[in-house]
């Protein structure tokens, strides 16, 4: 799956915990310097935000009309 914001997308909207977290961390490991990935979820993953901040990743969050949170994470 690709998205206008980035070709690297984890669509975790129908995944059970802890799959979204694991899939995000796995994709982050595959990104090159300067690349971004997008995580799609129906909630804000605050525990993941904390881990991202601890590991020095920037992220931006936008909620769209169907309730999806689009979380754009920088490598």
């Amino acid at each position, binding site marked *: 799956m690709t998205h206008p914001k980035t070709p690297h997308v984890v669509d975790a*909207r*129908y995944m*059970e*915990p*802890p799959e979204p*977290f*694991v899939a995000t*961390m796995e994709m982050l490991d595959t990104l090159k310097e300067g690349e971004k990935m997008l995580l799609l979820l*129906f*909630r*804000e993953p*605050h*525990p*993941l*935000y*904390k*881990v991202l901040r601890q590991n020095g990743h920037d992220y931006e*969050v936008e*909620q*769209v*009309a*169907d*309730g*999806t*949170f689009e979380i754009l994470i920088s490598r």
Partner: protein
Amino acid sequence: MQAVMAFENAPPFAAPLRFFLTAPLFAVLAGLLIAFEGPDLFASRWTPGALAATHLLTVCFMLQVMLGALIQIMPVFTGANLKRPLAVARIVHVGLSAGALLLASGFYSGIPGLLSSAALVLALTVLLFLAATVLALSGVPSTSPTIRGLKLALLGLAGVVGLGVLMALALAYGWALPLAALADLHAGWGLGGWAGVLLAAMAYVVVPMFQLTPGYPMRASWWFPVAMLGMLLLWSAAVLAEWPWLVRLSQFAAAVAGMAFAGLTLRLQAKRRRARADATYRYWQLGLSASIVALLMLASAALWPDAVGVEGWTLVFGVLLVAGGFLPFIAGMLYKIVPFLAWLHLQECGKAKVPAPAMNKLLPDVNTRRQMLAYAAALLLLLATVPFAGWLARPAGVVFAVANGWLWWNLASAIRRYRQAEIDISRKLAAK
């Protein structure tokens, strides 16, 4: 890594567990009270037994679980960190249990000292909880409808407890207040502004997460809590101004908002990707259906006030909304939260070397489904008791007590298996 991550954000298991394991016992007590009092309790919503049973369910059961769950999930759902969660949990648990028992016995006995003591203990307990949560949430921006909903629900909690304390003191000291109008408003703040808005704020996260449904549409999820609180403020102003037409208008609008939320949740559940219908899903279906019927009654009574004069109308409405709506939502959530937290803690104990047992090994589906059926039978009996109190009041009370005792047994058994698994994991780790 997930377990480590979750633990950094979550308070100790003991913090919420005390609430979850005591709450069902109060519902058992409510059932026993109904069985003991029998048909007299159903004479009207104002009988001492009905007032005591109602508050055993709303304060001792609902408020217990809601505050316990909030202490646990606030960091995960909002990113806010509650300071000293275990200490807050201990004090709030003791205060709430003692205050609620004082309140129920005050209503039942009519002793003014019990009512005023209950008001003081509950006011101080809820103030402490509000102070701790407001402090934790200060500086947390409302980036999601869940965070905004939670903040507004705390306003609802302040509203329902403020009105409740005022009325308890008025009853204790004989103050001249319009108690009937205030009691309706108090119920509106409690079930709409606090429990309803909190339920919605939590549902935005847990319904898609646990039942694998689509998400709640953005616009509806942001506006529901605001609309509900707005209607309650309007209702309050109407009571102050003594404008009955505005009271009815705001009740009608609050009922429509509640039905829209329940209808939307049913629609999302119909699109779920999890094929298996577990007890949580069934409990939510029951709760949503009963709430919609109760809110239709509220909307009808707002349009045709004479409906309230129909014998048993208010009692059926109350049983449907509290025992049919909110209690099933809470029981359904307990069946997800307790095994999930136990599993999470066992993952941590295993240190990625010894796997934790699956959640359905900690709390088997068959046990929860049977208990849910017993609860549904108790609910039907309670509803049938309103027209046939002479025959059914005592059996309904007994079945309600048994169903809630079974809920407690299922949760306590899950904790017993969790403790055994904890010992097994420690032994296996030591042997490695």
